[in-house]
């Protein structure tokens, strides 16, 4: 996960910010905010919560920027900060998470999506919220973000067999949830 090849690289920007050019940090925020808002929205079941999580993660990343050991790998390092934020949010509000929150992810209501499709999406998002955060994460990274098991394993510093086991349990639970909701 190297930085963008167009324009200034992530590494150059991180080094500039650390050297005192604070305003340059906006380039990194602009570059990655939407990409990770989708991950956060699917993880938290709410677009608003995702926006807060992404904002908070960028602020934390700024505070800890000097600890980013390889500025060229800012993206992977930032992802772990956002991931921790999402997991913490999940633990904090676990008892308060309403299944209805899934409906707050806005893309299901797009006008170009038929009612039946929108309903299936809502049902799946509700079912995703019933998974453990670890199961939901591997599903989101593979089937929403389109990463391979190898890429996910690298990102999460884990093994492919471990991820597959998590995912296969997720498939079974999703099937159960969707049948119950049917």
């Amino acid at each position, binding site marked *: 996960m190297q930085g963008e090849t167009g324009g200034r690289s992530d590494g150059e920007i991180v080094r500039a910010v650390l050297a005192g050019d*604070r*305003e340059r*940090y*906006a380039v990194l*925020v*602009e570059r990655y*905010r*939407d990409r990770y*808002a*989708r991950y*956060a*929205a*699917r993880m938290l079941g709410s*677009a608003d919560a*995702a*926006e807060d999580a*992404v*904002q908070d993660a*960028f*602020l934390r990343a*700024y505070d800890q920027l000097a600890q980013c050991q390889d500025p060229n790998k800012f993206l992977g390092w930032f992802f772990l900060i956002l991931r921790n934020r999402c997991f913490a949010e999940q633990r904090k509000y676990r008892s308060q998470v309403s299944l209805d929150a899934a409906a707050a*992810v*806005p*893309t*299901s209501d*797009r006008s170009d999506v038929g009612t039946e*499709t929108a309903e*299936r*999406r809502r*049902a*799946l*998002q509700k079912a995703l919220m019933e998974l453990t955060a670890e199961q939901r994460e591997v599903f989101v990274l*593979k*089937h*929403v973000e*389109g990463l391979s*098991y190898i890429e996910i394993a690298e990102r999460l510093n884990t093994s492919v067999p471990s991820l*597959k086991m998590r*995912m*296969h349990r997720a*498939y*079974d*639970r*999703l*099937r*159960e949830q*969707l*049948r119950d909701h049917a």
Partner: protein
Amino acid sequence: MTQHEFDPRVKQLLDGELTLADLPAELRAEGEEALRLLAAVDRASVSVPAVTWRVMAALERRRRRLWWLAPAVAIAAAVVLLLGRPSTPPTTLSATVVTVRFVLVAPGAHQVSVAGTFNRWDPSATPLVRSGTADTWVATIALPPGEHQYAFVVDGARWVPDPAAPAVDDGFGRRNSVLTL
């Protein structure tokens, strides 16, 4: 395997390692059910354009807080007095004068004053004194109701507007804070 568990070969289908055609006939229906599940995945992007300015504004606020904090306290005190329900004994000197407390946190400063329309912009007229922590400077003065413009002067040379108060251009490229009593 319970009734809710997908067959391992169907899980391979979901993982993209097999196609529907690879499944035996008896698993086709289950495979189609699995593919319907994947078809419901919402991959639409989520846009959060406000995050950029919210992050940068938060960083700017933090930076300013290192130097200044509290003129907002002075404004709050004035508001309380004007509303006529002070939390401490009234400090108005008369019906037409309001006591205002200016507070500034300025790490490393050796001298702080407030200059404004109420003291003819004289940096030596209203010095702040250290209070509490070494970085906190305070001055309490009586002002008539109305609009006042002011700025803090740090170490006799640096003019600092109040980031917590409205500000106007002074016509010379600087910003003056505005306090309305």
